[in-house]
C-alpha cells in the first residue's frame, strides 16, 4: 500500500481539527460520567463513553500523541470490565473515570502547547488495581485484536460528525473578515443617509429624491438584516460555557462537604464568541464563591430550617440588546453591615463614608481588590482570581456586574453584557470643542449643572449629588494637558461614570445624542492611546474618539495621588 506522508500544513490542520474534537469529546465524557453517577441508563452512558474513548484513541494514534493513545487504550479495557452488570458502579469507579478524564485533558493541553506529556503511572496502576479486583483482563492487547470488524466500524463514528451535513466548521477569522466588511457598510449607510437628507432639504419637491429615498430605505432594511444575520453566525449558545459547571459543582461539593443541586436555565441563550471565550473564568469564580461562602454545610442549613441540599442556579437570558447572566444561590447571603465593618477595618472607607453607603453600594464593596469577607481564605475562592478581577473582566467586555442579597435567603450576582463587541451604543458629546463618545455601558447617569453647583474640596472640583460626592473631571485637563479649572458661566452637563466605589463626573459642553458606533482600532505605532478604546466614523464622515472611562479615571486617580505626594 502506498504510504502517504502529510505536509507540514496538512499536519497542522489535522492537529487543529483533532484538538477541537478532542476537547469536545472530553466535555461529553464529563457529562456522561456525571449521568452515570446520577444513576441514569447505565448501558447507554457506558456505550457513549466507550465510543468516544475509542475515537480519541484512534485519532491520537494517527497524530502520534502517545500518552493520550495509551491512556485511552487502557481506559477501553477498563470500560469493558464495566459492561459486566455484576460490577457495581460505585463512587470509586466514578472518581476513577473523572480522574482519567482530567489526565486526558492535561495531556491535551500539553500536546497543544507543543510540549511532551509523560504517562501518569499512578493512574495506570489505579486502573490496573481496579481491573484486577473486578476480574477484568489487565493485559488486553489480545482481547482487542479479537474485536469483530463490524463493531469497530460502528465505533468509529463520533457525534461531532453526525450532523456534518447540517453544519459548517469555518475558521472564525473568515467570519470576522465579512463582519468587518458589514461594519464598513454600516458606515457607508450613514454616509448615504446624511447626504440624502441634505439633498432632500435642497431639492424638496424633486421626484428623483423621493425615488432615491425609497431605494435607500430598502437598502437600509436589507443591510440591518444582513448585519443581524452576520452577528448570528458568530453567536454561540452559552451552554458551551455552562457545561463545565456540573463537574465543577460536583467536585467542589465533595471537597467542601456540601450538598448542592445545580440548576441551569437558558442554556441556549446565544452570545458573541469573543465574549463567550472570556466569560468562562469569571463565571467559574462566581460559582466557586457561591459554593464556598454562600451555600452552608447541610447541618447548618437544617438548623436554619432549609433543605439540606442547597441550590445553585445559573440563568442566562436576553434583555433587549444585552445578555443577562445570573449566578444565584440559596445560601446564607451577603451581609451589607459586615461588608461595611470590614471596609472600615481594611481602611477602604471611613466610618462616616461607610454609614452613607446604601445596602446595594455596600454589597458592591465585594469587588474591591483585596476585599474578602470569608473568615478563612480557602484554597478555592482565595486563589488569586478575586472578585475584583471578575469585575474588571466584565467591564472589559463593556458589561456590568452587580451583587444582590437577602441575608439568610441567598445571594445573586447579575452580569449584563452586550451581545457583541463590534458595534456599541454610545453617547456622543462635545467637550473642549472636541467630539467624543462614551459607551452607554459605562455611563451611570447624566445630569445638568450650573457653575454654582460645583464645590471645591481639597483643590478639586466636586459635585454633591443626593448626599454623594462626585469628583469632577475636566476632559480638557486630562486628555490634552491644558489647565482648566474654570467652568465658565454656562450651564453644562456632567456624565457620571462609576469605578469601583467611587463616582466621577466628566464635564461636557453639549450632548449630541446616542449613536450606534462601529469600533475601529487606532494605530498604536507612535504611542499607546490608553484613554481611548478606539475610534469610529460618523455618517458625516467625522472621526470620533471613543473614550475608555475606567482608564481615564485610573489616570485621574494617579494624578491625584501624584499631587498629594508632591504636596
Amino acid at each position, binding site marked *: 500500500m502506498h504510504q502517504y506522508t502529510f505536509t507540514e500544513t496538512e499536519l497542522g490542520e489535522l492537529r487543529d481539527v483533532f484538538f477541537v474534537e478532542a476537547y469536545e469529546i472530553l466535555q461529553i465524557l464529563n457529562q456522561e460520567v456525571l449521568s452515570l453517577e446520577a444513576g441514569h441508563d447505565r448501558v447507554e452512558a457506558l456505550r457513549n463513553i466507550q465510543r468516544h474513548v475509542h475515537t480519541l484513541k484512534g485519532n491520537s494514534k494517527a497524530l502520534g500523541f502517545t500518552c493520550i493513545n495509551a491512556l485511552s487504550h487502557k481506559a477501553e479495557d477498563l470500560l469493558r470490565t464495566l459492561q459486566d452488570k455484576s460490577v457495581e458502579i460505585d463512587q470509586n469507579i466514578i472518581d476513577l473515570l473523572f480522574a482519567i478524564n482530567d489526565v486526558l485533558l492535561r495531556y491535551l493541553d500539553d500536546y497543544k502547547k507543543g510540549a511532551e506529556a509523560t504517562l501518569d503511572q499512578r493512574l495506570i496502576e489505579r486502573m490496573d488495581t481496579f481491573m484486577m479486583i473486578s476480574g477484568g483482563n489487565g493485559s488486553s492487547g489480545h482481547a482487542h485484536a479479537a474485536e469483530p470488524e463490524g463493531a469497530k466500524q460502528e465505533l468509529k463514528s463520533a457525534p461531532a460528525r453526525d450532523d456534518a451535513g447540517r453544519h459548517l466548521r469555518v475558521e472564525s477569522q473568515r467570519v470576522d473578515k465579512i463582519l468587518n466588511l458589514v461594519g*464598513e457598510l454600516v*458606515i*457607508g449607510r450613514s454616509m448615504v443617509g446624511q447626504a440624502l437628507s441634505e439633498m432632500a432639504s435642497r431639492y424638496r419637491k424633486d421626484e428623483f429624491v423621493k425615488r432615491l429615498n425609497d431605494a435607500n430605505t430598502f437598502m437600509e432594511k436589507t443591510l440591518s438584516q444582513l448585519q443581524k444575520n452576520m452577528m448570528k453566525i458568530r453567536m454561540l449558545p452559552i451552554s458551551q460555557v455552562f457545561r463545565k459547571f456540573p463537574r465543577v459543582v460536583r467536585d467542589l461539593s465533595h471537597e467542601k462537604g456540601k450538598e448542592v443541586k445545580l440548576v441551569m436555565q437558558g442554556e441556549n441563550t446565544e452570545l458573541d464568541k469573543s465574549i463567550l471565550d472570556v466569560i468562562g473564568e469569571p463565571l467559574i469564580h462566581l460559582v466557586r464563591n457561591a459554593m464556598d461562602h454562600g451555600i452552608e454545610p447541610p447541618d447548618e442549613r437544617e438548623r436554619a430550617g432549609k433543605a439540606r441540599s442547597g441550590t445553585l442556579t445559573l440563568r442566562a437570558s436576553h434583555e433587549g440588546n444585552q445578555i443577562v447572566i445570573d449566578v444565584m444561590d440559596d445560601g446564607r447571603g451577603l451581609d451589607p453591615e459586615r461588608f461595611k465593618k470590614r471596609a472600615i477595618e481594611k481602611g*477602604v472607607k471611613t466610618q462616616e463614608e461607610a454609614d452613607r453607603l446604601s445596602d446595594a453600594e455596600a454589597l458592591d464593596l465585594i469587588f*474591591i*481588590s*483585596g476585599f474578602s469577607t470569608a473568615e478563612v481564605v480557602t484554597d478555592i475562592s482565595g486563589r488569586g482570581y478575586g472578585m475584583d478581577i471578575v469585575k474588571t473582566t466584565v467591564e472589559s467586555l463593556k458589561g456590568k456586574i452587580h451583587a444582590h442579597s437577602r441575608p439568610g435567603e441567598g445571594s445573586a450576582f447579575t452580569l449584563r453584557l452586550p451581545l457583541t463587541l463590534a458595534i456599541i451604543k454610545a453617547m456622543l458629546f462635545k467637550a473642549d470643542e*472636541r*467630539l467624543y463618545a462614551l459607551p452607554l455601558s459605562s455611563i451611570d447617569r447624566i445630569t445638568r449643572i450650573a457653575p454654582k453647583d460645583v464645590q471645591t474640596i481639597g483643590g478639586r472640583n466636586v459635585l454633591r449629588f443626593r448626599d454623594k460626592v462626585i469628583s469632577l473631571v475636566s476632559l480638557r485637563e*486630562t*486628555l*490634552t*494637558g491644558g489647565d482648566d479649572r474654570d467652568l465658565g458661566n454656562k450651564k453644562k452637563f456632567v456624565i457620571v461614570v462609576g469605578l*469601583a*466605589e*467611587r463616582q466621577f463626573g466628566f464635564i461636557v459642553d453639549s450632548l449630541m445624542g446616542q449613536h450606534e458606533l462601529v469600533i*475601529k482600532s*487606532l*494605530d498604536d*505605532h*507612535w*504611542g*499607546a*492611546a*490608553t*484613554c*481611548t478604546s478606539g*475610534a469610529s*466614523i460618523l455618517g458625516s*464622515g*467625522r*472621526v*470620533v*474618539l471613543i473614550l475608555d472611562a475606567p482608564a481615564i479615571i*485610573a*489616570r485621574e*486617580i*494617579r*494624578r*491625584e*495621588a*501624584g499631587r*498629594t*505626594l*508632591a504636596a
Partner: protein
Amino acid sequence: MNKKNQVVAFRIGKELFGVHIYVVQEIVRVPEITPVPEMPLFVEGVINLRGKIVSIIDLSKRLKIERGQKTKSCRILIIEVERKIVGLLVDAVTEIFRLPPESIEPAPDIVTSVGTEYIMGVGKLPDKLIILLDLKNILKPEEIRKLSSDERPAIEAANVPVAPLEAAA
C-alpha cells in the same frame, strides 16, 4: 512614463523635500483632523480616508524644522512604509519629476536642517537642490522612542509619580 526614478517634491517652510513616488499612495487635501490624546506632539491626529482611520504626522514637527502657516496649499501625502499606511502633513506638494540616479548624491556634509540619518540623498536639479527623505528611518518606532520626553504632551510628565490605585481609592 516610467515610475522608476520619479520623485514627489513637497515644501515644508522654505525647504524642498522629496520622496520616491512608489511609497506615495495618494495626495489629498487636508480634511478635518481629529486629535488623539497621549500621542507624541508630531502626531496631528487621525483622519477618515474613505472609511479607514489613518494617523497624520506633521513632518515639520517630526524633523524639527520650521513650517509655514497652514494654508490652502497644505496637503497630506498618504504613504505606505513597512506595510503601514500613514499620512504626512506638508505645506505644499510642488511637483513630480524624474530624477535619474546619477543626479542623486549621498547626504552631504554641508549643514542641512535635517539630521543626516533621515536623508537618503540630495537630488541636484539645474536650479535647485532637493532633500530626499528616508521615511523608513523617520517613521521607525525605535527612532520615535528616542525622542526626549519634552516631545510628549505635558500630561505625560505630570503622570510620573505612580501610586498604587488602592492608595487613592
